[in-house]
């Protein structure tokens, strides 16, 4: 099956009623407006995704999955392994984040937060509250740490202040 037909068939199977509604819209539209429909849907999807971003991240149930997914970041596991996995996850999540999947924001912040917390707990509070970062020379990979910090800062600020996810990350990262 060609790629396009496969995409359509999968959507139709998953959302049969929505698919039928879409077909009704397409059928009822003159040729000249069909391209407009594509454009409108693209814009509406962009809007919807940015709206979803804030609401989904308050779903704390996702955090349990996140914890399970990243068990290897806990101190009982080899540090090098944790760094490698966390680093690759951050990169993957950047890709995921471009799709604006809301949980990825909390997810990425979590991973980066763990990384910062684990290797530079003395700076975690400062990063979180002041956004200031000047890494001292350590044995951990400098570039990876900087990427983690950057990732965390970028993700963290979009998380709603005072939300459960926000509080969770504060607890996670802040050690005074």
């Amino acid at each position, binding site marked *: 099956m060609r790629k*396009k037909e496969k*995409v*359509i068939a*999968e*959507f139709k199977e*998953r*959302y049969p009623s*929505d*698919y039928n*509604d*879409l*077909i*009704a*819209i*397409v*059928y*009822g*539209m003159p*040729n000249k*407006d*069909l*391209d*407009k*429909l*594509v*454009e*409108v*849907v*693209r*814009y*509406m*999807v*962009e*809007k*919807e*995704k940015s709206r*979803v*971003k804030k609401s*989904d991240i308050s779903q704390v149930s996702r955090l349990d999955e996140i914890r399970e997914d990243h068990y290897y970041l806990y101190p009982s596991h080899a540090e090098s392994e944790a760094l490698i996995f966390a680093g690759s996850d951050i990169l993957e999540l950047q890709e995921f984040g471009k*799709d*604006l*999947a*809301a*949980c990825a924001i909390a997810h990425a912040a979590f991973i980066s937060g763990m990384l910062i917390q684990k290797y530079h707990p003395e700076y975690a509070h400062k990063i979180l509250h002041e956004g200031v970062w000047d890494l001292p020379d350590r044995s951990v990979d400098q570039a990876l740490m900087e990427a983690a910090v950057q990732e965390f800062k970028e993700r963290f600020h979009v998380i709603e202040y005072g939300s459960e996810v926000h509080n969770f990350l504060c607890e996670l990262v802040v050690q005074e």
Partner: protein
Amino acid sequence: MYLLDEKKEKVISEFKEKYPDGYDMLVEILNELSAADLNKFAEVVQYEVEREKMKR
């Protein structure tokens, strides 16, 4: 950035004005989709429009 957003809003509101029922249906569909399926939907719309144009 803001000009781009204004342009998008304008395109959406023009469509809404011209096809109020279609617009409402799209809103309903988008509300039902998971975040991960939103892009998939945009892709499906594009493919269906291509198919429809070829048929006509």
